């Protein structure tokens, strides 16, 4: 068992890569690349399920850890591991892989091999981001995750792929320049890229405080663009409207939010608290701004983009409230948002496959024609707007109640307005697309309702939303453990160095 526990994370990284290789060498016949990719992603998902099954609650620190030096100088190690924070995110990434493959089943007609090779490399990069505990390794996967995404946007862009791809790439690549300098600076001062050791160094106060402030800001900036946090969301709407569905559903949110939690708050708890008031303000503005813009969009991809800005801002609010419940709710909401957004993208992608347009006003009266689609869409919408007993409610409730009690009442009241607006734009979307008289397009073009392939995927997702809403306690213990302050870290340090004055706490929430 130990052997499996040690190598499980490496396997999770390698299986998609092996699948990519297999797709690359296999002949491009009929749906063969699709099947290989589907099989690979299902196997990977199965592997990720091993993690929660064998995760030991109450055991502190990282589990399934594997640490092996990779490059001697500078000392970069292949160091991976998960804790409560990343555990379920890895599973979520695993779950969204088959969803992505199935969403691309018919949508991708040309160059399937290239598509699935890049898609699977993207999977590896995402897993890598979630499990890396060495800053350089993490940075490697972080950058790597941009490449397949950008190339696929360029390849399959609906109108102007290269432009959107370039925008996406530059928006996320340029902020990672200061991030790399910050990481290098930390290395120059401490001679390590190891997360736990760095955490200890930063907490020890041995580094110059002013410089650490800038380093923390560089981290924050790089991650905030990726989330995206309010004034930095410029890339999102173009990316959503150009990217293939399978990639659009993973591009925003979890990578950036996880990085904020792990590497901004985790490494620089003191500095993060200093900027928290600004981030709370930006988050509340983002909630309202995203919701208001979502209300007036005519294109459903763009509507989803601004809805995402609004929802992700809510999660940022939960994270930077620095309350225990808020952080727990934030992580839960990342999971819920991942599932719900995935389903929503899948459904809209199905509509786009059938009618080849994303303009909302040319749809209408679909419910009579595609009853299954309508049912599932309404269900997903309800989960998204946070109806009780569905998954969206739990996170929203935890975040808003903790902010109300622990941070600021007035901000909470304003943020809650965003939730109401969220219900408005989503329900209005449902009404315009599915109800009312049949539009010309819908009447003119014959279309099948959801196929078995689509139903077989969407119903489990719908059930999952329900289970997450009814029994969040399945997820919360591990998450709480990830958020809870950690006992002192056992870090070996050279006896010759100055001993630290204070003992680090993994985020003093």
């Amino acid at each position, binding site marked *: 068992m130990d052997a499996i526990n040690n190598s499980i994370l490496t396997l999770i990284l390698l299986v998609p890569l092996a699948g990519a290789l297999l797709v690359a060498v296999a002949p491009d016949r009929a749906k063969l690349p699709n099947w290989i990719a589907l099989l690979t992603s299902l196997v990977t998902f199965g592997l990720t399920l091993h993690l929660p099954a064998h995760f030991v609650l109450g055991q502190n620190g990282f589990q399934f850890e594997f640490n092996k030096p990779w*490059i*001697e*100088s*500078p000392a970069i190690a292949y160091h991976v591991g998960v804790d409560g924070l990343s555990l379920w995110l890895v599973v979520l990434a695993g779950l969204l892989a088959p969803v992505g493959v199935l969403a691309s089943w018919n949508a991708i007609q*040309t*160059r399937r*091999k*290239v598509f699935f090779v890049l898609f699977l490399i993207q999977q590896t990069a995402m897993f890598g981001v979630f499990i890396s505990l060495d800053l350089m390794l993490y*940075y*490697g*996967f972080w*950058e*790597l995750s*941009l*490449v397949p995404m*950008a*190339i696929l946007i*360029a*390849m*399959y*862009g609906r109108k102007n*792929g*290269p432009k959107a*791809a*370039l925008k996406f*790439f*530059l928006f996320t*690549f*340029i902020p990672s*320049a*200061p991030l*790399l*300098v910050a990481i*290098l*600076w930390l*290395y*120059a*001062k*401490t*001679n390590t890229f190891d997360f736990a050791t760095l955490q200890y*160094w930063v907490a020890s106060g*041995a*580094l*110059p405080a002013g410089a650490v402030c800038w380093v923390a800001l560089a981290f924050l900036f790089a991650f905030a663009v990726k989330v995206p946090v309010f004034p930095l969301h410029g890339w999102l709407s173009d990316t959503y409207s150009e990217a293939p569905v399978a990639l659009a559903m993973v591009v925003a949110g979890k990578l950036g939010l996880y990085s904020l939690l792990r590497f901004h708050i985790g490494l620089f708890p003191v500095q993060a608290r200093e900027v928290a008031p600004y981030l709370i303000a930006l988050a509340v503005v983002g909630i309202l701004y995203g919701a208001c813009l979502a209300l007036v969009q005519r294109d459903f991809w763009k509507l989803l983009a601004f809805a995402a800005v609004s929802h992700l801002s809510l999660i940022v609010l939960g994270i930077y409230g620095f309350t225990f419940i808020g952080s727990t709710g934030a992580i839960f909401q990342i999971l819920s948002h991942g599932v719900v957004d995935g389903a929503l993208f899948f459904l809209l992608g199905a509509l786009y496959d059938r009618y080849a347009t994303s303009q909302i006003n040319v749809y209408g009266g679909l419910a009579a024609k595609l009853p299954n689609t309508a049912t599932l869409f309404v269900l997903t919408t309800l989960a998204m707007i946070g109806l009780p007993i569905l998954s969206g409610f739990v996170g929203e409730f935890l975040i808003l109640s903790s902010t109300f009690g622990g941070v600021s009442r007035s901000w909470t009241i304003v943020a809650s307005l965003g939730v109401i607006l969220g219900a408005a734009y989503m329900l209005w979307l449902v009404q315009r697309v599915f109800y009312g008289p049949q539009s010309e397009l819908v009447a003119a073009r014959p279309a099948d309702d959801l196929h078995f392939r689509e139903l077989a995927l969407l119903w489990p997702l719908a059930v999952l939303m329900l289970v997450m809403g009814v029994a969040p306690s399945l997820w919360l213990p591990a998450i709480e453990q990830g958020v809870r302050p950690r006992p002192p870290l056992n870090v070996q340090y050279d006896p*010759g*160095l*100055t001993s630290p004055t204070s003992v680090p706490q993994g985020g003093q929430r």
Partner: protein
Amino acid sequence: MNPVPDIFRILPEVILTLTGVAIMLIDASLPPGFPRRALGGVGAIGTTLALWASLWQVSLPQGTGFYGTVETSAFTIFFHVLICGIVLVTLLLALDTLPEDSHHQGEYYALIVFGAVGMCLLTGAVELLLVFIALEISSIATYVLAGYRKQTARGPEAAIKYFLLGSFATAFLLYGIALVFGATGTTQIYEIARLVPLALNQPMLLAGMTLMLVGVLFKVSAAPFHVWTPDVYEGAPSPVVALLSTAPKAAAFAVLLRVVYEMFPGFRSTWSPAMWIVAALSMTVGNLAALRQQNVKRMLAYSSIAHAGYLLAAFAGLGTSGIAAASFYIAAYAAMNVGIFAVLTVVSGYDEELSVIEDYRGLLHRAPLLGGVLIFFLISLVGIPFTGGFFGKFYSFSAAVNGGAVALAIIGLLNSGLAAAYYLRLAFVAAQRPAEGKDEHTVFEPQVGFAVGAALLFSVAVTLVLGIVPSEVLHAAESGAHTLQAPPAEPNVHGMVIEQMQAEPEQSPKP
């Protein structure tokens, strides 16, 4: 005194020279009209032998030969292997892409090999006059190669520009050598290094060093000595540019490292700010100009200027870390740049039917493998992790950060963001769906022969190896750096050793 026969010290050069002569003789004795493709094969075999010979030199003790003019050390071996590798790839590339009816095919291969002799000798020379001669050997070969497409107007233009400006720069170098000789009375680099702190006429030495730096910086096309680059790259045939943009630069950087780290370590306070400025200028000028280019080769020319800037950032590093980072960067840069020009050669052909970025539209859809390789090299040039370009930048900038030049590292990394814009514009256009109903002349059938395939595979493999397991190469670069750092110090010279130690404090002071 020296147990190693002198000839072993220059064994790779000897092999290359013999190969070049053999190619010329065979070429002359073959009847006109007889296919001369096999001559390229001779060149490739000779270069491979030279590569093995360089590797074999590892077993030689470090030392000099021919009265202290040529050195073999880990440093020279590193660069010999690098240059021979580049030349091998360009020869393989020329084998398949040079048109069969070209009148001067034999000369083409011979010139490449002779150029390689000069470049190899340049990295091993520890005597300034030999440096000059080696530089001329390599330059004359490349001047001719640059003008190889004489039927076009741009070919001769490129050659003449390169020749005139290159001679001008060589004159600077020579003048610098003369001044240094005047101040120290010797042209042997180790002797100069020993005498520099004792020389009475320090201003003369400084002037000499400055002029030498100008001459060498011209060769590496660092701003503000870069103006020749885009025109030459545009006019010269792509397989030649694959060579031009890498091997002579590698050799020139080796000389630069020797000059600043071995000859004038005591003048660090003078050359370090100069390098800082040249580095920042090269990156910024190169990238800003590249952003506006539509012609792919011009764009890559400006990008190579920017890369010279990233590389010079390593010179802010202290001692061995800077030298090792620079050496590593040269290797990584050479691998990906040779690779990308190889792809361009295959895709657009010797006559370059495709010249602007828009012509590459849909390459990935038409020829997935070639398109994929093109995008791979572009990504490596951007500096994405798990490719050689990343670790090159990484080591270069961490050397800069370690040396205290944080601002330079930030400028460099922001510049690589800027650079991503134009590299990826090409990559994304290549990934885009081909335009429908476009006239047929943009549709082409790239032929990948065995030799070109091998060249591409070799460059891809090296770029990947440098990106995933860089330790070995870095180790080689570091041992090279150590040999460069050890001029035979004379402990009895007052103050000199202490001064050197002060110039290189312990890396990364522990907080």
